[in-house]
């Protein structure tokens, strides 16, 4: 073997003796000169090298290029032109951005808690022991794997004012005909509904968590006379808090990224009521061709998510109960 990158404990005995050094190819000789610890480090870095390169090329690099571009005007066609703080100034005085941020925050504040509660509720339902429970688990999970395009068309059709199924159900119970996608007051609710339909992913994570709680805790609580509600409140919820926290963080992040449904169902309308932040970034970049401004908005989104994550970790993360700290 030309290069034997052995580093495990077992190779201690097989370390090259002095006369081996100086033989073979240059690379082999260099490798043989290294101490065991150095070899381990070298081989370790070889393993994670693809990730490191990927991080530099596709994360850090683009972030820095975008940072550079925030000070420029660029429309693809001509060379980027330096404009100083123009884009930042524009960001602070942009009424459309203010609207976009407002509706994104409102959507997040409504859909994340509702989705979390609904996913937790469904997980408890499908945690029951019935004969056909696997079928129910499948049905509840399916919506979360529908392709985004199909999802958008499906919901645009369901919410259709005249011929959609949802208005049909409402009207057959004597309700009014609701302009789900035409009325700025209703369209937010429509987006919340279609988001909540797809909570299957977090539901399965909750289910896994529920099944991981040792049964003995429930039995102990039952012997102490705890009813169903008390068992939920004093056993299930504390034991599940790390998973609730995980789903909360993931939920917040994805709620700030609504894009495909807004683009395909309403195209930001009516009256910019669904012009979510990512859609506005997309439009600035690819429809108005303001790459510099789009770069500023991307950095803004990044900053918002960092601050949000910090708040969530600081104020909610500290209340999470971990059964085995450090695991």
């Amino acid at each position, binding site marked *: 073997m030309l290069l034997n990158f052995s580093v495990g404990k077992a190779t201690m005995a097989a370390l090259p003796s002095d006369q081996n050094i100086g033989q073979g190819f240059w690379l082999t000789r260099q490798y043989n000169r290294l101490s065991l610890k150095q070899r381990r480090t070298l081989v370790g870095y070889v393993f994670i090298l*693809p990730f490191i390169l990927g991080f530099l090329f596709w994360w850090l690099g683009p972030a820095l290029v975008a940072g550079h571009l925030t000070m420029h005007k660029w429309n693809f066609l001509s060379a980027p032109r330096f404009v100083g703080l123009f884009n930042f100034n524009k960001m602070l005085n942009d009424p459309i951005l203010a609207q976009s941020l407002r509706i994104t925050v409102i959507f997040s504040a409504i859909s994340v808690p509702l989705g979390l509660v609904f996913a937790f509720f469904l997980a408890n339902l499908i945690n029951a022991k019935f004969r056909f429970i696997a079928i129910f688990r499948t049905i509840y999970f399916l919506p979360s794997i529908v392709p985004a395009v199909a999802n958008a068309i499906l919901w645009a059709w369901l919410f259709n004012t005249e011929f959609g199924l949802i208005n049909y159900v409402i009207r057959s119970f004597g309700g009014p005909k609701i302009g789900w996608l035409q009325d700025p007051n209703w369209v937010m609710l429509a987006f919340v509904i279609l988001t909540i339909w797809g909570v299957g992913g977090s539901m399965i994570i909750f289910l896994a968590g529920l099944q991981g709680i040792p049964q003995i805790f429930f039995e102990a609580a039952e012997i102490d006379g705890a009813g169903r509600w008390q068992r939920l409140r004093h056993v299930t919820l504390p034991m599940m808090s790390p998973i609730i926290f995980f789903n909360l963080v993931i939920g917040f992040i994805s709620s700030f990224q609504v894009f495909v449904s807004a683009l395909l169902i309403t195209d930001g309308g009516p009256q910019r009521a669904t012009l979510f932040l990512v859609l506005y970034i997309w439009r600035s970049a690819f429809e108005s061709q303001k790459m510099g401004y789009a770069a500023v908005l991307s950095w803004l*989104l990044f900053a918002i998510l960092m601050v949000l994550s910090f708040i969530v970790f600081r104020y909610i993360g500290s209340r999470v109960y971990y059964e085995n700290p450090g695991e």
Partner: protein
Amino acid sequence: MGFSENPAEFVESRRSLKSYGDILFHWLTVFLLVFFAVVMITPFIWLFSSSLKTQINIFQYPPQLIPDPVMPENFVRAMTYKPFGIYFRNTILVAGLNVIAVVFTSSFCAYGFARMRFPGRDFWFGIVMATLFLPYAVLLVPSFIVFSRLGWIDTFLPLVVPPFFGGGAFNIFLMRQFFRTIPEEIADAARIDGCSEFGVYWRIMLPLSKPALITIGIFTFLFAWNDLIGPLTYLRSTENFTIAVGIASFRSQTDISWDLQLAASTAVTLPVIALFFLAQRYFIQGVVMTGLKG
């Protein structure tokens, strides 16, 4: 019923005595299960039934639940309206390369994070976790700028090259969790027999990780199949479109009617559902592995 010394037995014996509350709770659970199952599945039935209706029957109030006449030719019309054969080939090409990239490079990196001890490892794993929580949307415009500088716009390169660099934080994390469940003694035995660290990865860990590799392979395929944003951002000419972009372009053309949009949506969803039923075990496993054991 005598008092039992063993608490578990005591509880068990109490359980057999079903109170009215228990029976009520049982039936309430069944009712809610069925109710929400209907709520969740109705959109699918509505999509499928609408995709088989004539244009006239789609715009009918009150709506028909069962199409009459049934129009399977909607699918043929939708799939021939645009060159979906080419779109399908493009999608499979992109998805296939993504699967290969992710399966090999994410497991490779994960091995380093799971089984090697070296200075800086935890720092880099921290970066992996940070990119897991950093959303794609933040990078949408910055990556586009980089790829346009590289001259990669309107090629598949922006969609297939990046996965070869680590295969995504989600997959590295998942593979690392899996590798940590494999006993280290197996690897030590191979090392004593003269196996290098790369040999341990290739000959021992990969064959033992088939379930996890299949899981991330399926997730990757599904993600590439479903992805709209990537192809929409980077692909310009119609002969490069993927299926998702092809269907999305239906929306921007006002002359394409609902029956075709709905038939195309059904057609792109059915393979996903079929894949789900074939590989259900791996789906659940994958979600469970990422959600637990932080």
